[in-house]
């Protein structure tokens, strides 16, 4: 039975209602101890229930291990349990007195780049695991590059298996320097921190380790609880993709016409002068509605309904923006494209493109280069773009898109490609 030191205090008080949400992703392979780390995080933060723990104990015994194998906590589908691998992105949840966490747990092997990209797309923070014995490898480079490509604002590098290297400070400092040497090239401005841990024994995961007296910057959980998430949304450039039109046609709301959507950037106020794209008609916001009450202002990622002063014909896929701050409007976009599908990208191929709530057709105009994500070399002699490849691609759309660069807005700067023959999501693009 696990003791519950602070749960009473947490959940029975009002503080739980006043928690923030942090979404983070974990990159690392089975051998780096990623599953063990997540298991350890859940176990030491008292987030595992007795029946889950019993199931893991049972499974540990069945596999012949003497101790409880925390890696089994994250075991998912039967095929994965049988093969001892992770196939897909799994989402896990836990909460502490300070925050609620959503973990996108992604497999780290090269053939699962697409899963890592998927998990990273919604993350505010990424944990990159390094096996202290192996040091900074090509795989570490790949994980760091994907984190930077997906513009994850905060990176936590966990140097794991410190127990096997006698918790030596020199090892930690050397690996830190190695990582920085690479990361300075890919994300110089990001918030990167380093923590020496042993996921297996729990050092510096939730509980500060006595074996690393030279390390004073706090545990992994402490980092997760205190990373600032306030500034992760773009609060400067107002962007409101129209998602759905609300027309009650009831007696009470006879003439009501509301534009429902999620704020994708900036702050919208009642009374703001706005421009509607693509018509470029200008009008004024007359209310920012929600079921509970009308708001004076709304910011990302709120779901609201706007009403406008003038009766303009607006449909799904159009965008409401401040009259003096327009996005780029163009049929030509250049994207860093992660290919997600078994069928390779067709040069000159036509795909369906979804960007915010807008759907258009597009043509693959030019493939500029395919990136070797281990070496960051640009390969311009392109045979094909296959699953898990990342390529720089120029697209031409049939109708204009209203977009920002991915680095300034992760919502209005991202798009997916859909194969019309299979309806599958085949590509994920970040606009340059």
């Amino acid at each position, binding site marked *: 039975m696990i003791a519950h030191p602070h749960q009473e205090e947490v959940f029975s008080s009002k503080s*739980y*209602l006043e928690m923030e*949400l942090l979404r983070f992703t974990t990159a690392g392979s089975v051998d780096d101890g990623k599953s063990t780390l997540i298991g350890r995080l859940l176990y030491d933060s008292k987030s595992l229930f007795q029946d889950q723990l019993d199931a893991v104990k049972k499974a540990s015994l069945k596999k012949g291990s003497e101790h409880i194998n925390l890696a089994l906590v994250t075991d*998912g*589908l039967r095929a994965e349990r049988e093969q001892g691998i992770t196939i897909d992105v*799994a989402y896990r*949840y836990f909460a502490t007195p300070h925050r609620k966490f959503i973990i996108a747990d992604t497999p780290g092997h090269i053939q699962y780049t697409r899963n890592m990209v998927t998990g990273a797309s919604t993350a505010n923070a990424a944990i990159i695991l390094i096996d202290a014995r192996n040091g900074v490898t090509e795989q570490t480079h790949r994980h760091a590059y994907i984190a930077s490509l997906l513009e994850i604002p905060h990176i936590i590098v966990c140097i794991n298996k410190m127990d096997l290297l006698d918790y030596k400070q020199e090892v930690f400092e050397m690996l830190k320097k190695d990582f920085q040497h690479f990361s300075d090239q890919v994300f110089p401005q990001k918030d990167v921190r380093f923590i020496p841990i042993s996921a297996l024994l729990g050092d510096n995961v939730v509980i500060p380790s006595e074996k690393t007296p030279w390390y004073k910057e706090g545990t992994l959980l402490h980092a997760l609880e205190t990373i600032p998430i306030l500034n992760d949304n773009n*609060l400067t450039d107002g962007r409101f993709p129209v998602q759905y039109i609300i027309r009650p046609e009831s007696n009470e709301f006879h003439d009501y016409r509301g534009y429902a959507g999620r704020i994708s950037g900036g702050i919208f106020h009642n009374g703001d002068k706005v421009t509607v794209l693509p018509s470029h008609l200008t009008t004024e916001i007359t209310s920012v509605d929600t079921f509970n009450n009308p708001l004076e202002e709304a910011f990302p990622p709120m779901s609201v309904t706007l009403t406008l002063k003038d009766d303009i014909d607006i449909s*799904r896929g159009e965008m409401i923006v401040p009259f003096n701050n327009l996005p780029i409007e163009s049929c030509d976009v250049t994207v860093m494209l992660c290919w997600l599908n078994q069928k390779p990208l067709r040069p000159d191929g036509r795909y369906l493109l979804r960007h915010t709530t807008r759907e258009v057709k597009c043509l693959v105009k030019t493939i500029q280069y395919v990136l070797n994500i281990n070496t960051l070399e640009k390969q311009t002699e392109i045979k094909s773009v296959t699953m898990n490849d990342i390529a720089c691609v120029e697209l031409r759309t049939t109708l204009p898109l209203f977009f920002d660069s991915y680095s300034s807005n992760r919502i209005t700067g991202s798009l997916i490609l859909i194969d019309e023959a299979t309806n599958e999501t085949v590509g994920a693009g970040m606009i340059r």
Partner: protein
Amino acid sequence: MLQLLHLAELESEAIFILREVAAQFEQPVLLFSGGKDSIVLVHLAKKAFWPARIPFPLLHIDTGHNFEETIHFRDDLVGKFNARLIVGSVQESIDSGRAVEEQGINASRNVLQTVTLLDVIEKYKFDAAIGGGRRDEEKARAKERFFSHRDEFGQWDPKNQRPELWNLFNGKKRLGENFRIFPISNWTEMDVWQYLFQEQIELPSIYFTHDREVFNRDGVWLAWAPFMKLKPTEKVEVRKVRCRTVGDITCTGLTLSTANSLEDIISEIAATRVTERGGRYDDKRSDAAMEDRKKEGYF
């Protein structure tokens, strides 16, 4: 402060998904079990489309083995929200020979719901069924998408799911295929209870403590009903209990509890050591019980 708290962010995400369903599909339907998760869903749908009414009907798959209170509650809610209700009857599926009643001591109609559900989806040509499934419930659900594609047989292929990135959801499908949609995927059991509390949402009385005739089977307290078979060692007794989840009466585990209010329940859950599905008899059948049922087209 320009930062949403976690319940507000989860609410905003769920509303976004519900509006996306209304925009991308022709004939969506909301699966309403009478349980707390689907009650939260109906409230979220109300908020998503206000001041218009919810633009899709509610569907209740009635096993015939219900807690009576949930049926009264359902009808009240439908009236209050001016919603449209469709009831799919498992009894009718059995009578018409489409489904075969399980026999034996652990007989349950829980699995049979799948037959009725798929039949109703086919009959009304529903192309999206919105459910209250959450990823924290069970390990097979941890990899579920918000938009979960089902083939023309209603089946789920866990190894071939569409990637979901950012908030771009792909609801494209062929004729005859459909989607299961899970707007509260990212909510935990605690989030649901806290939301019910924050929003002061009414719940069926069976969620709060009451005296009930119960019996204990393999450590799980089950409600007794006249059609249930007992093992010789099991005896019916009256206990103070509440439901933690609500499913078919034959397989819904009860918690011994004196919790009388949402606050009571929240502090009780904070101290509990068993997941809510730990009390579901249907999940105890095997390690991959949920995975198997989901592949067949279960909720």
